[in-house]
């Protein structure tokens, strides 16, 4: 697509108006997933495996079906056979077939006239299991004697002789490692692990399904992407895509975890069988046990550096488990592990490993934070070993436009150097630290995403503008879309209304994921608005009796352009709209594409911590996020994304982890013991927005959602290293682990 260079002078872009959905959300008027209901609706509940790995011998639902109020029970037998690839994976995950593959795996479901009856009915379903040996740790799952999760799951890439649990293998790099390490004055080699973390969205998954025996249905659900839901549900149930209409609710967070389905196909299957609408709402325990946390990782990193601070070579081996299915994001981990730096000799090896854990799902920059934790920790040790400043050293190695990336191609314009310079200049970087305090620095990258996009604008009869997009509003994107439409039309922000369309009202849209909504839906809105303004100009030209080429659109008005166009008073959008029914009909604009001009975003974080030397407890004293937004459409929501990424990173680094017992069961499936940070754990997160325009977007936008969770893991670990003098190589940095490290030091 041909685009002019990014626009630079703006009237509305860069301002901070109130978000259009704000009042509804703070007053409780907004409807989230569990707020929807229908006449005649039943309530569903799901029976889940208490075993980490077990053969399902028999399921007997006779007693449950005999309970008054129970209308349907479904098992895997109610789903079609013969699916392949990811469709089969999703079907197997939403309802177990021959084996239960993890603690919490769905084995049957009930629909009844009340939630209490449905829950009572679950207790009456008799499941006979043959318990099998299990494995939940990535390194153990690769060992020779590890129980096999599923034979034949490996793809072409896995070399012969590896354990069947290794399902994908990857290797990439360039140069000559031996030569590179020989050029170094200091070489450091260390191993690291991270534990699985959950996205921790505040809203559990919820849906209402209504599916007829004729295969036509409706689904209302909480999701990041309703076309994805449609594709997955229709594939899993053997339906025709467009016969299922999916309408998204407001969404209480997703962070990648709501780009797939867990309960929606089950609710549809129950509804089809019962002949009534069925509502399913997950509890928090179900969310933690049976949705998709991120992968856990085990990593070996080796890096070399000259005494001047130049990285000479880097290699990494990354082993990641993503549960009982292929899909741990190790491809991205390997690709981005060293992507901040210009390194001639670099090599990556990655293993995607299956274990008896829930099927991992995307989590904010999936795969990137783990790799960054390991590589940025080693870089920090190199700086310490050679007595170098961490920001100066990063500046010396930072990629810029034209640098060949460690994953191959040359970078387009990017802003890593700008973020490092801003971080160095920020007052936080020179605050004097006290005893038991430490400072850490780390940088991170996310390449962002375009994705299939379809959007429309329609002019109202009073000249206001209706915008329809297919990406749900998670982080304030209605406001950003309205700002971009206001800018393109030259009309006030308040005159734009943004709606999220259902799957019956627009072409396919990928979810709000990959930090793509503001970039891709925004681009589509700008192009659709430009189409509409061309039509508005045409109506004015017709009225004035001049050529449309002689009309220009400016500040919400059609104006004659140039001296030869003639003398006419400008026509406002409202004036043209008032007459549109009699001048050719409604005026709208539409745009659809899979835009490829997404630009990656770099960020640099600086964090100060204090570690209690007697308890090992880490307090975050100060936190600075500097990140490239390309162009901040609504700066408050860009800052919100920066802060949110940092906070989730703080949780993952300090306390969040999936803890499995010897029995393979999740030990902490509640927020009491799965410890996300609470507000009082956090300082105000300081932010600096860097703007290096993305040439691939008309206003220069880069996605900002995901990069922010990439630097926190190493930045905090580096700060703790600075405070206690010990390198922590296993996340999270819980007080018992930190205290043990302090005691071992002394």
């Amino acid at each position: 697509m041909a685009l002019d260079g990014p626009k630079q002078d703006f009237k509305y872009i860069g301002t901070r108006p109130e978000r259009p959905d704000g009042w509804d959300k703070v007053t409780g008027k907004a409807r989230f997933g569990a707020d929807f209901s229908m006449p005649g609706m039943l309530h569903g509940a799901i029976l889940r495996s208490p075993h980490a790995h077990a053969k399902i011998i028999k399921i007997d639902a006779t007693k449950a079906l005999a309970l008054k109020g129970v209308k349907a029970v479904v098992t895997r037998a109610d789903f079609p056979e013969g699916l392949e690839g990811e469709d089969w994976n999703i079907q197997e995950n939403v309802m177990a077939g021959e084996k239960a593959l993890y603690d919490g795996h769905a084995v049957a479901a009930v629909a009844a006239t009340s939630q209490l009856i449905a829950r009572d009915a679950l207790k009456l379903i008799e499941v006979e299991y043959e318990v099998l040996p299990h494995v939940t740790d990535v390194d153990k799952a690769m060992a020779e004697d590890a129980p096999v999760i599923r034979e034949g799951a490996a793809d072409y890439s896995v070399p012969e002789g590896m354990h069947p649990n290794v399902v994908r293998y990857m290797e990439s790099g360039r140069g000559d490692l031996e030569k590179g390490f020989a050029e170094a004055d200091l070489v450091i080699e260390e191993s690291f692990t991270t534990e699985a973390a959950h996205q921790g969205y505040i809203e559990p998954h919820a849906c209402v399904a209504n599916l007829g025996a004729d295969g036509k249905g409706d689904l209302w659900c909480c999701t990041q992407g309703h076309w994805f839901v449609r594709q997955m549900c229709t594939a899993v149930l053997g339906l025709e895509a467009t016969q299922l209409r999916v309408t998204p609710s407001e969404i209480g967070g997703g962070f990648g975890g709501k780009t797939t389905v867990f309960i929606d196909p089950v609710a549809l299957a129950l509804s089809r069988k019962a002949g009534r609408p069925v509502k399913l709402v997950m509890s928090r325990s179900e969310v933690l046990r049976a949705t998709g946390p991120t992968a856990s990782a085990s990593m070996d990193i080796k890096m070399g550096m000259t005494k001047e601070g130049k990285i000479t070579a880097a290699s990494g081996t990354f082993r990641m488990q993503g549960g009982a299915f292929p899909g741990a994001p190790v491809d991205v981990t390997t690709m981005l592990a060293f992507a901040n730096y210009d390194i001639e000799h670099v090599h990556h090896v990655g293993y995607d490993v299956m274990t008896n854990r829930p099927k991992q799902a995307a989590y904010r920059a999936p795969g990137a934070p783990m790799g960054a934790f390991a590589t940025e920790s080693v870089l920090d040790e190199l700086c310490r070993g050679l007595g170098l400043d961490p920001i100066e050293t990063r500046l010396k190695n930072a990629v810029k436009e034209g640098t060949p990336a460690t994953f191959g191609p040359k970078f387009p314009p990017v802003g890593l150097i700008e973020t490092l310079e801003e971080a160095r200049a920020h007052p936080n970087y020179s605050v004097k630290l006290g005893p038991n305090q430490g400072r850490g620095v780390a940088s991170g990258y996310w390449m962002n995403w375009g994705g299939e996009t379809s959007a429309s604008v329609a002019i109202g009869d009073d000249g206001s503008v209706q915008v329809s997009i297919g990406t749900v509003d998670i982080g304030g994107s209605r406001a950003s879309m309205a700002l971009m439409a206001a800018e393109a039309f030259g009309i006030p922000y308040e005159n734009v209304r943004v709606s999220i369309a259902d799957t019956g009202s627009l072409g396919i849209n990928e979810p709000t994921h990959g930090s793509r909504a503001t970039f891709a839906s925004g681009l589509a809105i700008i192009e659709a608005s430009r189409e509409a303004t061309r039509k508005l100009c045409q109506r004015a030209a017709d009225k004035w009796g001049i050529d449309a080429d002689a009309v220009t659109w400016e500040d919400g008005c059609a104006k004659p352009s140039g001296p030869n166009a003639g003398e006419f008073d400008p026509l406002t959008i409202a004036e043209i709209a008032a007459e549109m029914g009699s001048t050719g009909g409604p005026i709208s604009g539409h745009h659809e594409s899979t835009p490829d001009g997404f630009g990656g975003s770099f960020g640099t974080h600086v964090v100060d911590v204090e570690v209690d030397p007697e308890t090992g407890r880490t307090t975050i004293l100060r936190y600075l996020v500097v990140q490239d937004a390309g162009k901040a459409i609504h700066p408050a929501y860009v800052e919100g994304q920066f802060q949110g990424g940092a906070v989730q990173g703080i949780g993952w680094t300090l306390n969040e982890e999936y803890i499995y017992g010897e029995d393979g069961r999740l030990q902490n499936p509640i927020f009491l013991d799965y410890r996300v940070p609470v507000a009082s754990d956090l300082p105000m997160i300081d932010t600096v927005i860097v703007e290096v325009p993305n040439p691939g977007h008309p206003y220069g936008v880069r996605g900002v959602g995901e990069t922010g969770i990439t630097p926190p893991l190493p930045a905090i670990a580096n700060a703790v290293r600075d405070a206690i003098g010990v390198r922590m190589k296993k996340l999270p940095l819980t007080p018992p682990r930190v205290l043990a490290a302090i005691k071992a030091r002394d």
Partner: protein
Amino acid sequence: MQYHTPPSFEEASRIAASASGTTRFLAGGTDVLVQLRSDLVTPDDLIDVKHIPGVKEIARQEDGGWRIGVAVAGAEMTEHPDLGRDWPGIVEGMDLIGSTQIQGRATLVGNLCNGSPAADGVPALVAAGASVTVTGPNGARDVAVADIPTGPGKTCLEKGEVISALNIPARGENGGDAYLRFIPRTEMDIAVVGCAVNLRVDGDTITEARVVLGAVAPTIRAVQACADALIGTTLDDAALEALDKAARAACEPIDDKRGTVEFRTDVAGVLARRAAKIAYARAKGEQS
């Protein structure tokens, strides 16, 4: 499930005594309702004691002690103008439980009856020498708070018995108490280790002391060796070191997802020292 709102503790006791299935008393409900909704316990009889006269009162007794109703919420204790001046450790222990919303419901007696060794409200009560009035089929009796919990989730209360009031002794002169807990976060968590200290001074010298540890044994534990380490000292370094050592020695914790044996033992010593310093400063009037 039968839901009862008895007008007196005698009636509550009678209902409980005649119940045949699972019985729960309901005050703030911050444990009972959570257990009910998570399908952990479905009581056959739920006896709501909030409607009994006097259960929301905090009353100063003639001897200077306090009588606290069984449905008094944490927030009401925190906001009371005088209670926290006498017993800051008891009030701060209760105040650590849950969020602002939970504080509007949760009760100290409920925290005690839940029987958790990690209960934040209980160690300071034990350190203060508090007792409860228990109403049962055979009338009322007073029981030391220390004797109520008998193991994780268990209490010494017999069938048909219900706690009808909490009695805190008079503070007296030159006394101070304090409660500290360790959690990895700053709130909304369960104590990995808790420690309450209550002491009295004469000048700079400690004359009376009680030290109580939470979450390091099957029940909350009053440790005489810790008290002995403090009595007769001016809380100098040697006393603190002896206290730390005695606290560690008293620990019999478990290894679980919330903390290791080694960690809990270490931190018990740390909290004992830190809580003792606060209680000492309060006893001397140097800190509120």
